[in-house]
């Protein structure tokens, strides 16, 4: 008789299950600006716009994001223009840094996945600093 207790690996990378709608209820607020998403960023205070960060973020955005996101128009995914009035900064960074879990558990991300034709947000392997720079660039997009 065999008894095995194993935890599923957090890294289990199944290309198709990454779009599986999850059943669990999320504890997050229904106000999008209150929803910080799920991931490494739990709290972020924004100061004045830092132009150096903006420039670095813009370069990263062009290299790693534009295959799916045009700044000002809907493409494969949504346009980031005006995103700071729709989402919390934590949510934006968590969506960049932790898209697989966000797509499974976060109610807004789940809804966006359906709205955008089941095209999943790709994890581009960014560091927190890089995601922060991209966020700063987004702050300049009206």
């Amino acid at each position: 008789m065999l008894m095995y207790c194993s935890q599923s690996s957090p890294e289990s990378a199944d290309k198709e299950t990454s779009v599986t709608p999850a059943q669990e209820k999320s504890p997050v607020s229904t106000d999008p600006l209150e929803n910080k998403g799920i991931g490494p960023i739990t709290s972020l205070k924004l100061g004045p716009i830092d132009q150096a960060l903006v420039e670095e973020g813009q370069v990263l955005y062009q290299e790693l994001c534009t295959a799916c996101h045009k700044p000002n128009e809907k493409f494969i995914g949504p346009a980031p223009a005006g995103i700071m009035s729709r989402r919390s900064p934590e949510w934006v960074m968590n969506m960049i840094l932790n898209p697989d879990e966000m797509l499974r558990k976060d109610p807004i991300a789940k809804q966006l996945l359906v709205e955008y034709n089941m095209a999943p947000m790709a994890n581009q392997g960014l560091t927190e600093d890089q995601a922060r720079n991209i966020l700063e660039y987004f702050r300049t997009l009206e």
Partner: protein
Amino acid sequence: MKNMISNNTFVLAVIALISFSCTPQGNNPGVLEASNAASKVYVAPGEMDEFYAFLSGGFSGQVSVYGLPSGRLLKVIPVFSVDAEKGYGFNEETKPLLNTSFGFIPWDDAHHPELSQTDGVPDGRWLFINGNNTPRIARLDLSTFETVEIIEIPNSGGNHSSPFITENSEYIVAGTRFSVPFPQKDVAIDSYKENFKGALTYISVAPESGEMSLAFQILVPGFDYDLAHSGKGKSHGWTFFTTYNSEQSNTLKEVNASQNDKDFIAAVNWKKAEEYLAQGKAKTVASSYTRNLYNERAHLATSETLEEVQVLIPSECPGLIYYIPTPKSPHGVDVDPTGSYIVGNGKLSADLTVHSFDKMIAAIENESFETEIDGIPVLNFEDVVAGTVESGGLGPLHTEFDGEGNAYTTFFISSEVVKWKLETWEVLDRIPCYYSVGHLMIPGGDSKKPWGKYLVALNKITKDRYLPTGPELNQSAQLYDISGNKMELLLDFPTIGEPHYAQGIAADIIKPRSKKIYKLDENEHPHAIKKEDQARVEREGDVVRIYMTSIRSHFAPDNIEGIKVGDKVYIHLTNVEQDWDTPHGLSVMGARNSEILVMPGQTETLYWEPQRPGVYPFYCTDFCSALHQEMQGYIRVSDSDSDTPLKWSLGESPA
């Protein structure tokens, strides 16, 4: 001299084996009760194996990677043969890896994988494997599990006694199994004894990069140099090569190469060779051979042709090489973990001959030589032999060790593994193999520190072990538990091609080094593009280069017009994904080529010569997302004299 009785014995034994093999197996001796065996090989879903096993693919030309103890196939790594699944040898980037002095060769016969070592212990950095047919050695990088280098061995035929690394990966070796004229020339085959020579080649391995260079060759009599192992510990600095056909026959070797009662183990002092090289004793010999190197950052292999080798002649280099008489056409030669004993597996015999390294050194110091062949002193058998293992089996081929003072030898003719004790030479246990075992592998079992838990028997005959699949059957591996006093058969699993030798290593050594992606910002491919807005098509004469990106789930561009019949089209696809396990494939209808399969951050090139006007679909071949089916595009091909303008686009009509 060997008489006809031994040959008759061999034939009878083969017949006995065939009848044995065809007998239904009622009880499998040594097999654990099924549920007990199952629990020992059960790796639960989501759990991982304890060991990596790298099995040669033999005539498939590849290396297959298995997990142990489950026997699960993890990957087939293309090495010497093209592999359409991965685009290997089909994309422009990897074609140069298969270049030789004879041009592009899509196949070889891969025999002996050998892990790189540090201090005599597998270090998990590289895996080397020999190509037997057109002599070559390949290096695989175990952070990417890809072939990254192939070097051709000149002046050799049948690179069999290879690569068998030294204990700090200073050298890998390449002894010729089929001696050939040296240098190659047009001579009568029956002038063998006059014109044919063997070459024992040493290839140095750069400590940091792993890059191989041909350091020197030793010119030796035209015997068949069959297998090898390098010394370790006290015998570090030496390599031992078995020989057969010391008769130097060139025909009906089955009989004519089995006349001498003893052939030789050649003992090469490679540190002495280094001294002679430093003294300028080597002759420079013109020899054309290729060295092909894959640059991981450029994602591109290049091939260079080299024109000369340094050759040492034994008669001019005393102390470089000795012959140790060893009975019955020895096949494998295996050095125990302490480096003290050299096991000669006399394949036409029942017994194993074990030589003592210390006695060998004493005999050399006493200059106790039986004779000399082409300047190579032949030691006296009695001076060097440490013991004989009277096994009761037939046809010993290979021996590995468990690090606990025990050795395990395969017997091809009697189809079994025999466990015996070093220094007492007594047989401790034996267990059958199904059927006709060749090599065996204990993880680390040819190193200083074996992981003596499992043994894998690599069998030549499968017969009735699996569901039948017509005349051709996959060959078979069998896993044994050797942690107790008695060996226990746990598992059968099929293999890709013919597994000659194999290597095993604790998974924990390799796992942390395994890469998940190639970083896009480190991509130095000359035709990479890193942003979708750089996607474009360029024409120069009849050469058209399509610079394309992929990300879930589209190619950019996906509509292309202005290609003409007769164009030479290069599609340079950069996969701009940066997540693990997100490759994209690309294939084009009618392209006389395979797909390409591009890893995240990598660039690969599909070459296509369009033949007929029309519109040709291309698409992603590796299911990548829910919108994978939509990941497709079209290329319009016009007549060669048309004036269709060059256009490309994504998400709009071509403009």
